[in-house]
């Protein structure tokens, strides 16, 4: 069984070879489609990552606030809710149920719905890490902030959060890589990202192996790139003499 890489130079409609292989004008090649699909994956993943980081940080911080039991209960419920329902089911809920229940989402593009689904799903996991990061700090740091006369928002902003985020950078790295992998679920609601391309183009050309290999390679490259970026950030923000202690957890 020989591999035939020319499949990427074919036109997606009439299956005729295109010189130069890239899409041009009204001609779209499989290579052009592959790259466009990669772009969709990157957009979905990055937007979801932003949603997840913002929401996750807020929820995770709220869970550690002193003297606000109802807020922490809400945040705990949030984490349990989004952590215990499979991502695919959540995506279906956003896609099929939300537009009907909440009229705001009626005209929202499906890309945004997927980003909300993936982002909020991941926010629960990031919230767990933020909470663990804050609780890993010695209690004295909180008291020191209070003793300096800081208000609660102030000692969170200037004392606890800067250290907590440094501690949780390694798990955040793997979470960012997870979000790239999990963005493949968007395929279930026909967002034209890499996995969607893989299945569709694999069927159209019956050259599944070559197509899947290219897509797998792009996933690996994406994950690796994120890993490098996060490692770079980790090095840049490192506090000299402070060794981050990572909690238990093997996945």
């Amino acid at each position, binding site marked *: *069984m020989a591999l035939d890489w020319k499949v990427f130079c074919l036109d997606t409609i009439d299956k005729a070879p295109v010189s130069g292989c890239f899409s041009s004008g009204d001609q779209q090649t499989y290579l052009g489609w592959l790259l466009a699909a990669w772009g969709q994956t990157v957009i979905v993943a990055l937007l979801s990552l932003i949603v997840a980081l913002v929401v996750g940080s807020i929820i995770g911080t709220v869970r550690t606030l002193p003297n606000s039991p109802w807020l922490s209960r809400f945040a705990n419920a949030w984490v*349990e*809710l989004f*952590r*215990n*329902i*499979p*991502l*695919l*089911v*959540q995506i*279906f*809920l956003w896609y*099929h*149920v939300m537009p*009907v*229940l909440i009229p705001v989402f009626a005209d929202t593009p499906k890309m945004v719905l997927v980003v909300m689904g993936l982002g909020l799903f991941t926010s629960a996991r990031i919230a767990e890490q933020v909470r663990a990061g804050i609780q890993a700090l010695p209690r004295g740091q909180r008291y020191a902030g209070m003793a300096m006369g800081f208000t609660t928002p102030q000692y969170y902003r200037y004392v606890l959060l800067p250290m907590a985020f440094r501690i949780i950078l390694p798990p955040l790295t793997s979470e960012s*890589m997870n979000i*790239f*992998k*999990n*963005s*493949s*679920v968007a*395929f*279930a609601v026909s967002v034209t990202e890499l*996995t969607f391309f*893989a*299945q569709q183009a*694999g069927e159209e050309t019956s050259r*599944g*192996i070559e197509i*899947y290999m290219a*897509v*797998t390679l792009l*996933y*690996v490259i994406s*994950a*690796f790139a994120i890993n490098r970026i996060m490692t770079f950030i980790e090095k840049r923000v490192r506090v000299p003499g402070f060794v981050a202690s990572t909690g*238990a*957890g*093997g*996945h």
Partner: protein
Amino acid sequence: MLDFSVFTWEVFRSYVLHGLYFSLALTAVATLGGIFFGTLLALMRLSGIKLLTIPATIYVNGMRSIPLLMVLLWFFLLVPMIVGKPIGAELSAVITFIAFEAAYFSEIMRAGIQSIPRGQVYAGQAMGMTYGQNMKLVILPQAFRNMLPILLTQTIILFQDTSLVYIITANDLLHGFSVAGANLSHTRESYILAAVLYFVICFSLSWIVKRLQMKIAIIR
């Protein structure tokens, strides 16, 4: 706006029960198979023999950097080519999950084995135990116990991941709800019920794991 009245026990039994059974069975088989092959992979990686370490490392890191969906599609395409005949979505899902989860369980087991103090290994060697005896009698029992909460958490994640076999149209829990929703034309209610059922199962399981973790922590 939402009408749950069509979802009677009869509907649940005829559409969903089989899927629930398949999802649970897939979780159980993939957990046991994953732990078995994962332990082997972990032992290979810790063996210090390059011929074993390198392939195991490539396998584990490779599996961990590809989305499960892609792995499902890969196996769905490749396994029939290798076997020479179509094998069906269910069997394909089982093979994929064991192969995929083995990579994740191997990382957990590796951490577990490394969490055992080196002194224990030396003590075993000093007693004249072979490598196999040392692993079986001294290291692995302790590693399993240290890792039990994380292994179980991974099992819950695995159960959630089984919903992805919906993509290759294996007959799982989500597939059951999806078909029921389409046939009774109550798609929205059906997905909400699916979410509720998954939540109840996963939430109770993680509650049990939390209790277990406390118990183990006290003993230690």
